């Protein structure tokens, strides 16, 4: 079985708004799956629904062969899903070190190894180890958020728009690091920046009006001009 995560026709309400009206995804182990689509299409809500932050009212989410759609958020996280939200969710008043400490679920040999690995990937975090998270730059916050999600032995990372609001040079850095982490873990990435999405993505899903409307390998999308124009507004 190569699917790590299988989402079957989920629907999600936020308040009285019917945001997701049938999203279906299959995420293969070891791949980077990119969710594309216009603003407000439901990409962020899809990630939040996987995490149980906006629970689905219909459909199923199967992770490692187990249904998780009705579990509380913290249990879903413990099952091995790391989450990097759109706003990074940094604890601004806590230092980088404390942010990492909150994230580490079990302190053991393995997490120390992972911590070392991720700090080598993002040396800035080591530099600002004792600084409050709120004082970091946008890119550093992004790195800290990714590091927090990575440090536990998570088999799946959900990353929401890591390039948002970052300078192009920083975007490249973040992109490189995600590429490096690729062979360690599976990633679901929401990304508006098509350059970045097409560089690191293995396959894509397009979400429109709360539904998955198209899927395929990334290569296919790169050549499909019409699809790009229709759903992504790229001429």
């Amino acid at each position, binding site marked *: 079985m190569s699917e790590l995560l299988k989402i079957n026709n989920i629907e999600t309400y936020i308040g009285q708004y019917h945001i997701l009206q049938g999203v279906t995804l299959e995420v293969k182990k070891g791949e980077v799956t990119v969710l594309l689509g216009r603003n407000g299409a439901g990409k962020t809500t899809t990630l939040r629904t996987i995490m149980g*932050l906006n629970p689905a009212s219909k459909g199923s989410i199967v992770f490692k062969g187990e249904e998780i759609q009705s579990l*509380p*958020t*913290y249990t879903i996280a413990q099952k091995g899903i790391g*989450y990097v939200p759109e706003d990074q*969710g940094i604890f601004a008043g*806590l230092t980088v070190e404390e942010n990492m400490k*909150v994230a580490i679920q079990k302190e053991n040999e393995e997490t120390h190894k992972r911590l070392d690995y991720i700090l080598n990937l993002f040396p800035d975090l080591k530099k600002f180890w004792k600084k409050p998270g709120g004082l970091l730059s946008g890119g550093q916050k992004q790195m800290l958020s990714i590091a927090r999600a990575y440090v536990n032995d998570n088999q799946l990372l959900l990353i929401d728009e890591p390039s948002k609001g970052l300078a192009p040079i920083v975007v490249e850095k973040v992109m490189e690091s995600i590429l490096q982490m690729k062979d360690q873990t599976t990633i679901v990435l929401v990304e508006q920046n098509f350059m970045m999405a097409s560089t690191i993505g293995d396959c894509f899903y397009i979400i429109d009006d709360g539904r998955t409307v198209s899927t395929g390998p990334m290569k296919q999308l790169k050549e499909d001009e019409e699809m790009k124009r229709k759903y992504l507004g790229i001429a």
Partner: protein
Amino acid sequence: MELLFNLTLNGLATGMLIFLLAAGLTLIFGLMDVLNFAHGGLFAWGAYSGIWIYTTTGSFLFGIIGAILTGFLLGIITEKWIIKPVYGNHVQQILITLGLMLVLSEMLKVIWGPNQLTANPPEYLRGSWEIGDMIIIKYRVFIIVVGLLVFAGVQFLLKNTKIGLVVRAGVMNKEMVQALGINIKKVFMFVFMIGSGMAALGGVLFGPYSGVIHAGMGMEFAILAFIVVVIGGMGNFTGSVMAAILVGLSGSFMAYFVPELSLAVNMLLMAVVLIVKPQGLFGGKG
């Protein structure tokens, strides 16, 4: 000089008592978004149960321990059966905690009678020290020391333990804490318990300080604690201790010089903070 010193000491002692009440209030608010209007009731329960144990056993220490345990117990019960059913609904929460306050105060009258009880400091904390022509009342110093110890203890807990970190993180971003695999509901319970314990401790310390306790004291102190929570910034623990000292001192000085205005000054302070800096005088959250 002697007068100023005594007023300061008095203000600090009162401030510490308010702090014990306000600290729990602010932490619970910051973490759970619950403004517990029954918190004053826990203060009064701490006073009654503690003083009762103290007078029956003759040991003030037992009284203090008993009060704290009462606080813990009531905190757990409150969180589990009163607050939990209405999480996320502000209006319902405010209403229900006020109802609890009502029941808690009336229960005191049912158990211990409607009249006020008297309380005196134990032998070893009675009287005063004289340094030169300065008279220092022992019990006031005792309250200040206990208050500072509790402050230091909670501060240590928040800074240096995992659960403390989680509490601070939760104040800033509850959702993210859960997304990192932490069951925040358990942390809620813990904070509620600690906060209630502190309030109860404040209550039992207040008994011998004022000499009498009555069922209405919870409400009176709760109002001061609310003022402190607003001035210090809701959810800000260190802010609450500073604001409590400020309110205690201003109360003590005003009560001496212009007693009519003592509550008014604190109210005015709160109004000014609400207009100018609703997030509190002492910086952001943290």
